[in-house]
């Protein structure tokens, strides 16, 4: 058998496949610049034909006695065409709707990690808020946790009213730009909690640290005689429920991954990590959604001149919404159980 002749015949098709790959690698499809038979449906069909032919050549390479260099070339060619044929899927809204409104609440309701993270976060938050608020009983707690400079800066920042008739643009501007900063900062904390979750301990540490600092700041601002405390609560009330829940959820999603290291359920550790990461995706999606809702609240409602009653009402409504989402949508249902089980196992 003359291998050189076989190569000669096949090489024409391989080169054509390479040309198609060249064109597709740039934009994900063959452009107008390429040949007529490479465009549109004809191009797709031609690509599929050539790819199958190359696959067959690779499979037959051994019986053709192709030289190793040629086989290596074919491996690369098939891999290249393969990654064009099966391209990465872009954002699919319907899948994400399912994750957000179906999988996430079920997962959150059933997941012990969520309970641990929520208890830890809100427990420490409440505790340090109480400690920070009572300077007579626990002197110097807020100073020790947050730092004197930080507290003074915060006090100064909220000293100017949210909205005043004579100076409306400047102070509103201040809060709008600060809300951008807070979105970045708080969502950043949430995402860091999530990422650290795979190592568990840094996640718990970050979560606890932020709970204590936030709680102490809240407690400090709630003290009598602290400047700007009205403005502070005016500002944080509306987006508080969304944002704090989102941080706790992000940490819970992270912990869910980390728990996979030792709660393997009979799988190998790597498979277990992979499975628990898959299970954490709905939780982190819910968390990100809450962060987005918090961001909109923080950008448009918190710094706005709306009355405090409205903002408090918004906070209550958002808490109710979160409860509805977690409990009513998340309450275990027989049908839901089956799908969840089949998906997880």
């Amino acid at each position, binding site marked *: 058998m003359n291998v050189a002749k076989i190569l000669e015949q096949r090489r024409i098709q391989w080169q054509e496949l390479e040309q198609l790959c060249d064109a597709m690698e740039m934009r994900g499809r063959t452009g107008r610049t390429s040949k007529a038979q490479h465009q549109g449906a004809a191009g797709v069909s031609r690509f599929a034909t050539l790819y199958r032919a190359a696959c067959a050549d690779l499979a037959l390479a051994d019986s053709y006695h192709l*030289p190793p260099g040629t086989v290596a070339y074919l491996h690369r060619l*098939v891999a290249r065409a393969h990654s064009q044929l099966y391209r990465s899927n872009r954002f699919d809204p319907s899948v994400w709707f399912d994750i957000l409104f179906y999988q996430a609440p079920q997962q959150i309701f059933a997941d012990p990690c969520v309970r641990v993270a929520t208890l830890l976060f809100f427990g420490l938050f409440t505790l340090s808020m109480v400690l920070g608020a009572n300077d007579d009983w626990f002197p110097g707690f807020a100073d020790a946790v947050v730092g004197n400079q930080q507290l003074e800066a915060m006090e100064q920042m909220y000293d100017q009213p949210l909205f005043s008739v004579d100076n409306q643009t400047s102070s509103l501007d201040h809060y709008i*730009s600060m809300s951008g900063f807070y979105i970045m900062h708080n969502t950043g904390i949430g995402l860091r909690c999530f990422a650290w979750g795979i190592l568990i301990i840094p996640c718990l540490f970050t979560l606890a640290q932020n709970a204590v600092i936030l709680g102490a700041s809240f407690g400090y601002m709630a003290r009598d005689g602290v400047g700007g405390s009205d403005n502070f609560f005016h500002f944080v009330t509306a987006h508080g429920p969304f944002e704090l829940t989102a941080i706790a959820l992000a940490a819970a999603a992270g912990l869910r991954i980390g728990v996979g290291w030792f709660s393997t359920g009979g799988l190998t550790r790597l498979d277990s990590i992979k499975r628990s990461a898959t299970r954490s*995706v709905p939780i982190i999606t819910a968390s990100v959604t809450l962060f987005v809702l918090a961001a909109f609240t923080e950008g448009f409602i918190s710094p706005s001149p709306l009355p405090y009653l409205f903002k408090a009402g918004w906070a209550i409504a958002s808490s109710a919404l979160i409860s509805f989402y977690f409990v009513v949508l998340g309450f275990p249902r027989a049908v839901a159980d089956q799908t969840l089980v089949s998906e997880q196992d």
Partner: protein
Amino acid sequence: MPAAAALDTTIAVVTPENIAFEYQLAGPFRRLPAYLIDVIARWIIMAAVILGMWIVGGMIRMSALQAYMLAATFLLYFVFTNFYGTLMESYFNGKTIGKWACGIRVVGTDGGPIDFRQALLRNLIRIADLAPYVVLNDVNEEIPPIFFLPVGVVGLVTMLCTRRMQRLGDLACGTMVIVDERNWELPVSKIEDPRVAALASYLPADYRFSRSMSRTLAVYVERRQYLTPARRREIARKLTTPLMDQFDFRPDIDPDLLMLALYHRNFLWNEGDDSADLSALNGFSPLAKDQSAEEPPIAAAVSESVTPVSALSPAATTQDAASEPAG
């Protein structure tokens, strides 16, 4: 050949077409530069977008917009630092700017493409992979305590410990980073020495090449240009000595030339093509029964006669094809 586990960094993947093909894994020394390029690219893009935004805002000259633009700047910074990799990888088929520059790509461990979910997970978990962080004000009291320098030991260690060189983020979402070859040359050896075809015609017509024999011949001819003539003979002799007995050839034939003849017979021979030009041998017969007193011209060292040519240029292809029967 026994299916031993490969010692190098290739990984086999079975596709839905039931084809097993190989990817070459990208290790830390390819991934680190890609990451650094990404960091720089991220800053450049961010700076360009924000600068453009402020220039446009300056032209509109609405002072009320200023606060919103400051907020938008913070948001842009946030999105770019956290979701740059996610967006790039899911929209550009597993590549970011840095990965594109370094010729690497993210794929699933099954060889398939990554989806948005995987891209999101592996990029968010990067924070844990870059750990531990060095606090710079430990080194120098002057530096404010906000600068943390990632060391990346966690990712490095997991990369070294896993078979597919995955960091934590890769482990969690089942991805790996592979080398995306961009060098498309089909190595084909051609033999120019006219004595090779003539010698090949003396090989028994019923000799059958085994698979391992074919592979050995191909590897030898591909590698032979990097060896000195003495080394070639030393290597070839191991294989040709038993063959010379089998074919009843003279023992003083150059082993390298015999290897080339075997290669020619195996890969370049046409069925029913026996019209080899024997004049190149100058009346010399390699068979042991024809051994005479004359000096064998064939024992002389063969000079650089095998050149790999690129299959991509049509000129080389036609020349390649034309030179075979002539040889």
